[in-house]
């Protein structure tokens, strides 16, 4: 039986999140103290060596990302926390921020010192006004206590745009604009917020940093999968007995997640599919359940770890009906800046609706596949590139569901 390992959620249920004294008693801000006693280069190398990769979905080595900003030598730099979790079925960042907001602030302050930034922003989704209150209280306490030194943190509220999870769209939104992704390069670590070097990391990524400093890069890199070490917080939804959140080492398998932690499928029904990583993740059939959840293993089977959402479907679910919900989502959330995404998500939804209503023809399946392939390479940002994944993976693994809908 696989077991949980709580690193990011180390203080969950053990401290009063609204009392900084509790966090300090639990060893909080020791990581920052240690970081500040190191040179910036040594600190960045330590984070690099830990192997920590971004927990927001792109999986880039965090220390390497930081080094790009450090190397710019610019005077003004920013640290931005992406707390705009909008992937359906995901609520892990909320759990972290509600239960241990100081560990996020500490992680950001460590990053600030490493790259030479004095200002941080937390971009928290508009659907979480109650989390914004918690963060503001935590920041006030940290300032009063003086633990952040000269590093300032401000909370900005998103306003319900899924695309703002993309880092350049998020930056546009903090600047007060429509959240449309930018052309890259330049990448944010070199030219981001108000054209200054900016590190954008996810809540979960930052919450890992203090522990890495405290216990060392070698300790961290020995946990879980070699190429994507550490743990991942997962949220289980759909047809699974335990609809819970868990934190597990990254070499845990999908089967263990669904059966050991999730308690399997309710009402003695059979498993049909699982979609991991949120709405843009691929659908995974029974035959691939022994895959480990780490980033590279998931990419290897044409799926994604993404946000860590685990959406389970039992044998009674009609895949085409679920996919229609997803294509509608992307049609709505496409920002409209680039043509392949704006038109592609619309046509994709149109075809899926036709299939779902029993009016589809075999020709539609070929078109869907071709459209999906084009979008995954031609769209400007991750939203459009990932949008076809649920369609393409279900066409591949659940072809029978589609055939059953054909006219």
């Amino acid at each position: 039986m696989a077991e949980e390992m709580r690193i990011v959620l180390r203080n969950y249920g053990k401290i009063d999140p609204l009392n900084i004294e509790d966090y300090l008693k639990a060893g909080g801000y020791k990581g920052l103290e240690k970081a500040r006693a190191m040179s910036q280069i040594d600190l960045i190398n330590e984070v690099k060596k830990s192997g920590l990769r971004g927990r927001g979905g792109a999986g880039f080595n965090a220390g390497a990302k930081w080094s790009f900003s450090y190397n710019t030598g610019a005077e003004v730099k920013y640290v931005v926390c992406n707390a705009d979790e909008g992937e359906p079925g995901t609520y892990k960042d909320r759990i972290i921020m509600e239960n241990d907001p100081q560990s996020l602030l500490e992680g950001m302050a460590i990053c600030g010192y490493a790259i030479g930034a004095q200002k941080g922003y937390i971009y928290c989704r508009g659907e979480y006004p109650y989390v914004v209150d918690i963060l503001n209280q935590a920041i006030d306490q940290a300032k009063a206590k003086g633990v952040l030194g000269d590093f300032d943190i401000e909370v900005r509220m998103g306003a319900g745009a899924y695309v703002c999870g993309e880092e350049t769209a998020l930056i546009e939104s903090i600047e007060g604009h429509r959240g449309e992704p930018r052309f890259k390069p330049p990448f944010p670590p070199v030219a981001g917020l108000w054209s200054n070097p900016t590190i954008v990391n996810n809540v979960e990524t930052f919450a890992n940093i203090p522990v890495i400093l405290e216990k060392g890069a070698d300790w961290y890199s020995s946990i879980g999968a070699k190429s994507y070490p550490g743990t991942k917080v997962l949220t289980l939804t759909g047809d699974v007995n335990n609809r819970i959140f868990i934190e597990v080492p990254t070499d845990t398998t999908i089967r263990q997640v669904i059966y050991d932690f999730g308690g399997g499928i309710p009402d003695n029904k059979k498993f049909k599919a699982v979609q991991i990583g949120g709405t843009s993740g691929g659908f995974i059939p029974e035959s691939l359940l022994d895959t480990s959840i780490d980033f590279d293993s998931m990419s290897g089977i044409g799926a994604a770890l993404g946000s860590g959402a685990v959406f389970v479907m039992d044998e009674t679910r009609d895949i085409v009906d679920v996919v229609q919900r997803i294509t509608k989502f992307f049609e709505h959330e496409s920002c409209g800046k680039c043509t392949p995404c704006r038109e592609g998500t619309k046509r994709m939804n149109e075809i899926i609706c036709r299939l779902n209503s029993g009016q589809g023809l075999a020709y539609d399946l070929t078109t869907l596949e071709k459209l999906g392939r084009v979008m995954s390479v031609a769209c400007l940002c991750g939203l459009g590139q990932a949008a076809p994944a649920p369609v393409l993976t279900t066409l591949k693994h659940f072809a029978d569901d589609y055939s059953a809908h054909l006219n």
Partner: protein
Amino acid sequence: MSAYINIIQEYKDIPGGLIEAYHALQREYNYIPEDAIAEAAKIFGVSEARAYGVATFYSYFKVGERGRYVIRICESAPCHVAGAAEVVKALEQQLGIKMGETTGDGKFTLEFCECVGQCQATPVITVNSKPYLDVSPEKIPGILSECQ
């Protein structure tokens, strides 16, 4: 009109403060009054088109009136398979309006939304941003009666 100006003015000197100003307006009125956009454009020194473009880009903002209680129903996949459609039906029936509409007395507005991040207990609805979990048609009368 001057009430809008006072609210917006507070965010004038914050870099990128336009969105924060819209949040503040919406906290006050539950929506962004159409006239306030022209004021915001003036105060932030951007064109009206740009200010309008920002306000309408984000689904959390609503330009133009809506009810005192905005009920949003999540239609993302996890809520969908948990029975969100029945919740929609019950809300429409009991309020006598369709999704996207506001009751005649200006009390309730029904809207679809995407995931609100409370997926441990689906289906989920929010009433003025407050989440209600594990919602079923039977729970709707109780939730509505809380809105006084």
